[in-house]
């Protein structure tokens, strides 16, 4: 009985806090993405013609964890199959956040554009035991920031 109680409390906490943080994060992402829009970002390999006097690496990373409610939802999905929507939004948010961090780093150092962006996803701390396993995903975005000589 107590265990069921704990389970329900965790589920509700996960649902409440998870929803709240997701909503807040999406609002924040929209604003920051609009602010960093002037900086061109591509994953082309060949740099454009022009005079560049500086090229350097910029990167942004983020490690996110999924909340309890979504984890249970995903576990149920494992039974029935289909799209795991709850994880889709998590990874979408994380990826946008990592790219934004990279862009913000580039803007701060006075870059004019970022070329050859790579986005990498790694699941960290996979544990064999399902209990107390920390399910977390790291997203890393990196690219080359170029500064045009004026």
């Amino acid at each position, binding site marked *: 009985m107590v265990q069921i109680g704990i389970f329900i409390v965790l589920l509700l906490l996960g649902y409440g806090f998870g929803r709240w943080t997701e909503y807040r994060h999406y609002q924040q992402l929209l604003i920051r993405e609009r602010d960093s829009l002037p900086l061109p970002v591509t994953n082309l390999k060949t740099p454009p013609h022009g005079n560049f006097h500086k090229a350097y690496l910029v990167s942004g990373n983020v*490690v*996110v964890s999924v909340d309890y409610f*979504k984890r249970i939802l995903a576990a149920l999905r494992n039974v029935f199959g289909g799209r795991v929507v709850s994880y889709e939004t998590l990874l979408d948010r994380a990826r946008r*956040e990592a790219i934004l961090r990279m862009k913000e780093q580039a803007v701060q150092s006075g870059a004019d554009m970022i070329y050859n962006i*790579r986005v990498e996803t790694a699941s*960290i701390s996979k544990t064999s035991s399902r209990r107390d396993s920390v399910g977390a995903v790291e997203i*890393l975005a*990196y690219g*080359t920031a170029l500064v045009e000589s004026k």
Partner: protein
Amino acid sequence: MILTNLESVPGREIAEHYGLVHGNTIRAKHIGRDFMAGLKNIFGGELKGYTELLSESRQEAIDRMIQQASAMGANAIINIRFSTSSIAQGAAELYAYGTAVRLV
């Protein structure tokens, strides 16, 4: 040391190629951080401690790569790639590699 992940350094010419250079580091988690991560597993959200840990470790891998390149006499590393793998329970390997070159 100029670092890029392009195949050249824009506006500069490559004088000499030195071949592959790489650096790696393996990091284990911290108990304090793991506790916080356990809480975050209920509420969801970013694990700031891990984000910092991984970015510090990645910097270390880059530093090792730079060391190797400067020992060869290179002044730039091009076409840099990163890779991350979780090798054992609670430990992650961060790996950086690229081509060391000397620019004119």
